Each structure stands twice: as C-alpha cells, then as structure tokens.
C-alpha cells in the first residue's frame, strides 16, 4: 500500500514537479494545498502519512502550519521544503517538530530518500 502524501506549496509549478516525482516513485498524492490554512484543513480531511511543507507561503507560513498540525497529531510526519538561505527558518521548523527537510531546487533522489527515511 503506497504512502499518502499531502503536498503544500504556494507555487503550482513546485506542486506539479513534486507530484510527478512522488508518483513516479510509488507514493500517492492524497491532496494539495497552497497555503498554511489550506494545509491544516487538508491535513484534517485526508489524514496523510506524510506532509511536504513549503516554508514561505502567503496567509500562513509553513512553520505556523507545522505547529498547528503537530498540535493536532504530535506524531505527524512533516518534511519541510526550503529554499536556499532559509537556514534559520529551517531550524525554527525543526524546533517545532519537523521530521526532516529538503532543499529546493528538488533533486528527485534526495526527495525520495528523505521521504523513505521519514516514514520508516
């Protein structure tokens, strides 16, 4: 049974790319969200095995959304997606309970490795 992933990113391009990477590697995309608010709603709705969470998003950013998701389910597996140069925010996310992080631009191999490790 393939693992179900919730993709959170405000850029459609990134969502499409990530979706493509995931589906080609045996993951199922359970849902997509384009900001923090949507992410929390979708998380409650689809109950994914794993969330990939962009850090900078409008309305509610990734770290806030992560904190809320963790409040709902403290065992939630959330992978942060960060652009280069967002080290402090990544560290904030780790403090808030992020499982791991991947750095854009995405490298298929890295993404899959991180996901595989995260769901073990």
């Amino acid at each position, binding site marked *: 049974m393939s693992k179900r992933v919730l993709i959170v990113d405000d850029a459609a391009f990134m969502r499409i790319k990530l979706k493509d990477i995931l589906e080609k590697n045996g993951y199922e995309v359970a849902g997509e969200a384009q900001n923090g608010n949507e992410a929390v709603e979708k998380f409650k709705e689809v109950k994914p095995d794993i969330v990939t969470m962009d850090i900078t998003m409008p309305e509610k950013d990734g770290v806030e959304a992560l904190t809320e998701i963790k409040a709902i389910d403290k065992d939630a597996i959330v992978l942060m997606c960060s652009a280069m140069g967002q080290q402090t925010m990544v*560290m904030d996310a780790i403090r808030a309970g*992020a499982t791991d992080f991947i750095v854009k631009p995405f490298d298929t191999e890295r993404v899959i490795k991180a996901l595989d490790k995260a769901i073990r």
Partner: protein
Amino acid sequence: MEDNSAYRELFFEETDDNLAILNQEVLRLEENPEDKQIIDIIFRAAHTLKGMAATMGYETMAKLTHTVENVFELVKSGQLKIESDLISLIFESLDTLTEIVENLRQEDEEKVNISSLVSRLEKVASSEHSLTEENDSTAATSATFDFPELEEADGVAIESAENSGYKLYAIGVRIEETSMMKAARAFLLISKLEQLGDFVQMKPTAEALERGELDEAFTVYYLSKENKETLLEHTEDCSEIEEVSITATSYAEVAASSQSVDLTDGSSAIEEQTAGNEKQTDKKKPVATKQTIRVDLTRLDQFMNLVSELVIHRTRLEDMSEKNNLSDLNESLTQVGRITTELQDLVLQLRMQPFNVVVQRFPRMMRDLCNELGKDIQFVTEGEDTELDRTVISEIGEPLIHLLRNAVDHGIEQPEERMAKGKPATGTIKLSAYPEGNRVIISLTDDGKGLDPRALEASAQKKGISTEGMTDDQLRNLIFHPGFSTAETVTGISGRGVGMDAVREKIMSLNGKIETLSEVDKGTTFRITLPLTLSIIQSLLVKVGQETFAIPQAVIDKVNYFEEKEGISVHQKEVYQYKGETIPLVRVNEVLAIPKKASDNQHIIVVLIGDKYYGLIVDELIHQKEIVIKKLGTELNDLSLYLGATILGDGGISLILDVTSICTTRKVVSYV
C-alpha cells in the same frame, strides 16, 4: 551552461598554477608523508581546481578533481596513509588532469576517459574508509573526527551521570558534502538526539551551528541511557547524512586518551617544526607573498621595443647636441639618459623569470625516471631563484631535460654497481644555477660513472668517426658529435643518438655555451653559461668593406691585428696559427660577398663555436657597444647569416652577424 568564455583564460592560468602546485607538493609529500601543511596545500589546490572546473561546466575535470580531493580528505583526517602506490596513483591522476586541461584548451571536448582512474581512487578511499568503520575503538574514531575537549566540570557531571545509569557516547557525524544547509542538517540530528539524552560538549559549538557555521562534520559527547543501536536507529531516519559514528566510551577513557594524544601530538609537532626550519635555512627563504598581476607577453615585448627605440633616439640627440654645441640641452639630456637607463633596466627585469619556473617540473620527471629504471637517485636543486630572461627560461627546459635523462640513464649506475665501486647506493644529481657577472651559470652534476674517453673512442671508431690524435678532452667532447651515442642499447629514455648535438645547438642559439668536466667513476658535470638577457648584448662593431656589422661578444675569444702573411694556404683552405693550433680562416667579406677594401687595419677575430676556434678577418674594428637586438622581419627570414639588426647612435642600421652560420657556411663552400 553559462557563457564562461570570458573567464577561460583566467581559468587556464589558474588551473596551470594549481596543477603545478599539486605536482610539486605531492612530490614533497612523498618525502614528508606526515607533513600536515603540505597535505593542506594539496587539499586546497585540489579543492580550488574542482570548484573552478565545476563553475566552468567541465564535468570530467570536476569529477576527477573531486575524487582526488576525497582521497586527500582522508589523508588529511589521518584515515589514509601516504604510500608510494598512492602517490603514483595521484600522479597518474595529475597527468590525466593535465591531459584534460590541454584538451579543454584546444577547445576539444572532454574526451579523456577517467572512469577506471576514478574507480581506482574511489577504491582506495572506500577500502580505507571501511577499515576504520569496522575498527570500533576510540582511537580510530578520534582519528576520523575531531572531538571537542572536555572540561573538568564536564568530568564531574559525566561521572555522576555514569553512576546513575547514563553512558557517555562519542558521536561523530559527517554530512554529505553536496548537502545544502549543513548546519540545519546537523541541528536536525541534534534535536533528534536531544529527545534521548543530553549533550556534554559539541564541536563546532551550538552557537556556531545556529549561525550556520559547519563544514561537513560535527562531533559531540553525549550522555544517554539508550544503547548504541537505538541511537543509531534514531539518527538513521535523517537524510543527507553520510556517516554517523557512535562509540560508547567513558569519561576515564576520554580523559586518558586525550592526554596521551596531546603528548604525542605536541612532540611530533615540535619535531616537524624544527625539521621544517632546518630545511628552510638549508634550501630557500620562505616565499614572501608579493602582489602580482599577469601581463600579456606581447605587451612586455612591445614595451621593450619602445624603450630600446627611446634609447636609440636619446643617443641620436646626444650626437646632435654635441655636433651643434647645444650646451643648453646637456642637462636635460643627462636626465633623459638616466631615466632611459632606468627604464631599460626595469623592462629587462620585467622579462626575468626565476629558474624555478623550469626546475619545478623536474623532480616529478626524475622520480618517474628513477622508478622506471630502478635507480636510486637523490635530486638536488639549488639557486631556483636565479633569474633569467624569459626567452632563455622557455628554451632551456628541453636541453636540460635531455641532460637530466642522460644523467639518470647513462650517468648514475645501478645501486649494486655503485656499492661494488664503494660509492653510496643512492646517486646524486645536482642542478644548480647562479649568476656570474652578466651571465648565468647552470651546472648539472652527477656522481655517476663519468665519461670514459676510451669507451668514447672505441664507440666513435665503430661509427667511423676518426679519433686520431685526440686528447682525452677532445674524446669527451665527442658526445656532442652529431649522431653519436654511447648507449649500447637504445632505451626509451635517452640514447636515440640525436640529442647532445641538439642540446649544444640549442644552447648556442641562446648565445650560451656548454662545457663538460668528467672523471671516470667520479661523475660528470655539464656547465652551461647563458646570457642574462637576449635582447641587449655586448657587441663588437666592425667594418667589412663599407659596411658596419656587429659581432656578439659572447663568442669572441681574442682579437688581433692580422697581416696577410699570417694566413697559410692548405688544401685550398686558409688557416691560421692560434694557441699552437691551426684554425680555419674565414674572410667575412667573401662569405657576405662584399667587395674587398684595401685596408691596412685588418683584424682577425678569433671566435669559439662549440669546441672549435675560427678566425674571422674583418677590415677594421670600430668599438665595443651594447646593442639592442631587433629581429629581422619575416620577409627576411632567409638571411641565415644574420642574427638581427640594431640601430646605431647615428640612426644608421647595422646587421648583427650570426657567427655560427658564417663559420659553418664557409666550411660548405670550401668543400664544394
């Protein structure tokens, strides 16, 4: 790929520099395998090369340098020992790199196949790597990772924690080199470990990590009640981590090992330092970092040309002021004179390069040669900072290589043979350079078997070269005879029978000369004398017919009055008695086809070409003069009898005689 063409030139210049550094330092490393400084230099150079290649998009090159860098990373961390096999492999990589760079320079594609080399390098790296991984002791781990130091207060805390069921772990983590945000990666791992225990010390410190300062590895002392397996499992779900090494230890162990490590480290560091000092005073001053810029050579040449033109016009001005009694001009002319002289000196200096530029590639070559021929040779160089004109520098390399190869191949005997002769098994070849007046002497000495006049004589006779009445010195000079080779078997290294005469020719074309000193079983010394510069030479101005010519003073042995009766006709040739020898006479006007002028002031100029004297008859001597050589244009390339031309003070032009071809031309004429 971006358009990097603008940086190409810079890329190649810096790549050449870095490759030269690598070659030189790897060689030094072979002799001082423990020298951390050398390893650091090598590591940096490899790293720079990799970075540049990657930036330029030269993937093959980046890949190979990356692999080399990895190997040195292991060397640096003490995981990999320097052995001659490894050095050879590194050299092979450097050769391949050079090849790749040459291809790139030709704008060829990167077609060099590096896969086997890379896999061999990787094998070296990985085999050593797994070795340390298997070896699960504190010593091995601390060699891999650089652990923080524990303070006394830590000790107290650790010991009390140990009493209440905690275990002390030494954890080293290496993050994948290509991973971005390494500090955050480390932070992630640390926050995972934090759930299972406490950190005692961390290197780099937590503050540094927060600021994002981390290279690739970090180490911690960590207290936890969990066992090693649980900890490993817990850290394994982090991505982009290359290696996690967890070692159970205790405070007592850490304290003990750090003490002993400190002791040995300290003493060996001191030894290294003193050894280094000795070497420095012994060999050369520490290289001071000077600020330099790179200048296109043609611009320097142009500068040189302009300055010499300025000198010419200054002389003309002086002439005019003298003739017309313009005393007002004198003072400023003196000033101009001084400044132009300084300018001239300066531009000459600009063209100078240290001998080191040539020498630096030799140790590597010598090493390869010795390995190939199974000889044990110590190669010593001296006076690397002696400066020579860059033309000389760029031309002298080939002849020196030939001489060095000969010395290794024919000169130095096999170790057993040397022992039998009561000589040390290790041969010595010494290459030194030093200035002597306005010349530079390069001498190449080996302590090998020397030139045996008898062997040379026998060999010459076999080849049909007449040796009748030759002195030992003359016999030794036979090595310069075209087509002469003493090697009984022709090896790939030397002894192809072409060579020594070419060596001599090359040196002569640089206005230099080569002499041989040799004693059987003691060794051979080649002494090469070279002018400091090729652009300005001392010359003797002479008149032949109505024309003025310049003769380079370097070749002149003696100048005498000449009376017709001194010329002796022998077999349609004219000869002259000089130092008890009979030397050929050359009437310059005949060679140059200039009508003879009735002169009562004829002089004979005795010149030494190679080991032969010739007497040149000229109609009149004018005076000695420092002249600037101007090359004849390409349209006058056929004029082989002239080296070039110079402009005289009065604005007139005079040709500079190529004495060598004048003397040899005459020989051809006389035999016809």
